[in-house]
């Protein structure tokens, strides 16, 4: 692997700035790319070079592979960090980058491809001995096939798009008649959303937690896990709050999940940062999917491990060995992340516009990752995440108390944000007790 000296960040918003800051700390030059709507974005301001790669629409800018590669060429960048979203899990992009002599800061195209197809990933997990939810071995083509499997594993079951994500193409079926009507709908949705009508069927858990394991592999064959993140507080499969450690994992289960995650990574010779998502219910865990990128919620792991995951990504991409200490692994203290979206906290309707007041919380245990600032105009073209508030403390109780006061201190005006919702959640009794599943938000009232 070549040494990296100049990194193009093929992303925008807080993660682009996050990567730029990591590069600065490593003494690397940076190239920001941006759409015409992001001329005033902070990642553009803080990078050494910046290139406008297209109009506001993502498809013509942040998803425009040739523009991005060309931007790397004209600026002399020798590596690309894809961030999350956009092209981060696009195997083709990783491949082209490699062919153009650019170091892709992420896994190999092969690993992205293998894990990007849910049915294949599930199959790989099963072969590696990682527990999966009982269900179909790959896509089910007919209702009759689906029905037979459902009867075998017992209702409720869930239909999912093989190529999908984000809730589209998903259907929960409590009985056979629901399954019958849902089957074609799910296939149609999958076809429209992902270009493939393939759906598979799985046992549906009624009150699972979403617990994911952060994994990291280097090019020297070492693969480690860095503990879990509990991301059960979601709304329509969009995570709102993540924490580590999970309030419900004990040392043994954490160890078992970590071991399973590492087994799966070894099966695909995984390199760089990745996340293995599990569902957890009644003491059992089941492999869900793997995300072959840095996650939005990676700071939670950084705060309890003391490891800068983005810098580690760059180290590993440049061929260095993981800097994670050998020996017994343990998480120190507790951390929680609140995603602050420019959205109506009740309807979750995006609320782009001008930030008129932007006052950040501070003091011990408070970290803010953001590319927003006062007078920044949030463009309407992209996702609504404008800041991540990450709280660290010696234990969950301290983190909760600190979160309350930090959320009180955090003032954003001009656009609606999810801060009021976060304030309500951290005062919710079930949340405080750590007694919740991914259905928390469905039942949450405030």
């Amino acid at each position, binding site marked *: 692997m070549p040494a990296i000296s100049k990194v193009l960040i093929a992303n925008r918003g807080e993660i682009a700035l996050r990567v730029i800051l990591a590069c600065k700390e490593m003494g690397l030059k940076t190239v920001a790319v941006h759409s*015409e709507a992001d*001329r*005033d974005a*902070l990642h*553009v*301001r803080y990078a050494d070079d910046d*290139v*406008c*790669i*297209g*109009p506001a629409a993502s498809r013509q*800018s942040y998803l425009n592979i*040739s*523009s991005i*590669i*060309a*931007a790397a*060429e*004209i*600026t002399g960048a020798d590596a690309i960090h894809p961030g999350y979203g956009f092209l981060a899990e696009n195997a083709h992009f990783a491949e*082209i980058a490699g062919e*153009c002599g650019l170091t892709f800061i992420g896994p190999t195209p092969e690993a992205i491809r293998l894990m990007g197809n849910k049915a294949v990933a599930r199959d790989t997990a099963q072969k590696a001995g990682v527990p999966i939810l009982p269900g179909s071995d790959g896509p089910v083509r007919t209702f009759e096939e689906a029905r037979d499997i459902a009867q075998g594993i017992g209702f409720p079951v869930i239909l999912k798009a093989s190529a999908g994500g984000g809730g589209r193409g998903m259907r929960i079926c409590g009985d056979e008649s629901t399954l019958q009507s849902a089957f074609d709908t799910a296939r149609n949705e999958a076809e429209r959303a992902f270009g493939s009508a393939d759906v598979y069927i799985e046992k549906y858990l009624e009150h699972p937690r979403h617990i994911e394991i952060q994994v990291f592999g280097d090019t020297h064959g070492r693969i480690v896990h860095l503990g879990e993140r509990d991301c059960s507080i979601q709304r329509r499969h969009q995570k709102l709050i993540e924490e580590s450690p999970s309030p419900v994992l004990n040392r043994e289960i954490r160890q078992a999940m970590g071991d399973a995650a590492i087994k799966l990574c070894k099966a695909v010779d995984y390199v760089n940062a990745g996340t293995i998502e599990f569902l957890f219910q009644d003491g059992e865990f089941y492999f869900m999917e793997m995300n072959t990128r840095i996650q939005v919620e990676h700071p939670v792991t950084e705060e309890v491990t003391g490891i800068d995951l983005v810098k580690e990504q760059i180290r590993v991409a440049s061929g260095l060995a993981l800097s994670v200490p050998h020996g017994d692994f343990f998480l120190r203290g507790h951390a929680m992340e609140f995603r602050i979206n420019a959205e109506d906290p009740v309807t979750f309707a995006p609320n782009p*516009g*001008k930030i008129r007041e932007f006052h950040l919380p501070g003091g011990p245990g408070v970290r803010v990752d953001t590319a927003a*600032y*006062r*007078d*920044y105009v949030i463009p309407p073209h992209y996702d609504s995440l404008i800041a991540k508030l990450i709280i660290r403390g010696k234990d969950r109780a301290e983190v909760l108390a600190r979160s309350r006061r930090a959320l009180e201190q955090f003032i954003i005006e001009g656009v609606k944000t999810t801060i009021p919702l976060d304030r309500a959640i951290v005062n919710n009794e079930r949340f405080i007790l750590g007694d919740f599943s991914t259905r928390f938000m469905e039942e949450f009232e405030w």
Partner: protein
Amino acid sequence: GRTAITAGHGTSCPKRSTLFATSWSEVAELNFKEILELIDKVADRGIGAVEIEQAGLKVRIEGKSSEPQVIHSYAGDRPAPPPAPVPPAPPTPAEKAATEKAAEDAAEVGLHIITSPIVGTFYRSANPESEPFVNVGDRIARGQVLCIVEAMKLMNEIESDVDGVVTRIYPQNGQPIEYGEKLFAVKLSS
């Protein structure tokens, strides 16, 4: 390989006033955010007034009254204002390079600007030995190749979308260019 790409109309730069007017006709119903944007625009551009009437709605925005009102006075006789003191690295880069743009804009009134539809390296000729596709003063026709932008080893020919005379070539030969960057100024044939 060669790809022919027709340059789009120079609508890429939202700050450019020459093309500002057209975008309003597309507005069906003016919402509050758009009114705020209009006010910014009036202030930024030093406009005298903007008035919009739609069914049941009338909006009028008058520019700053304390200063001499500037109504598209691109004659170029006003001296450029002294550059504002530049803070070391302000986080709000809105006014970035505003003043230098002003002088350029003035010279471009009535001209058609051809901008780059892609990112890459600008070449005026097909290869180092050959003549430039066009020079300043050349009369060009719609569809005529004006330059090449190289990206990912592809030589992309950029064609003119208008008839006219080239009055300016912005980039140097071999210069990297970004999306929307100005390539040619063309005086349209009348």
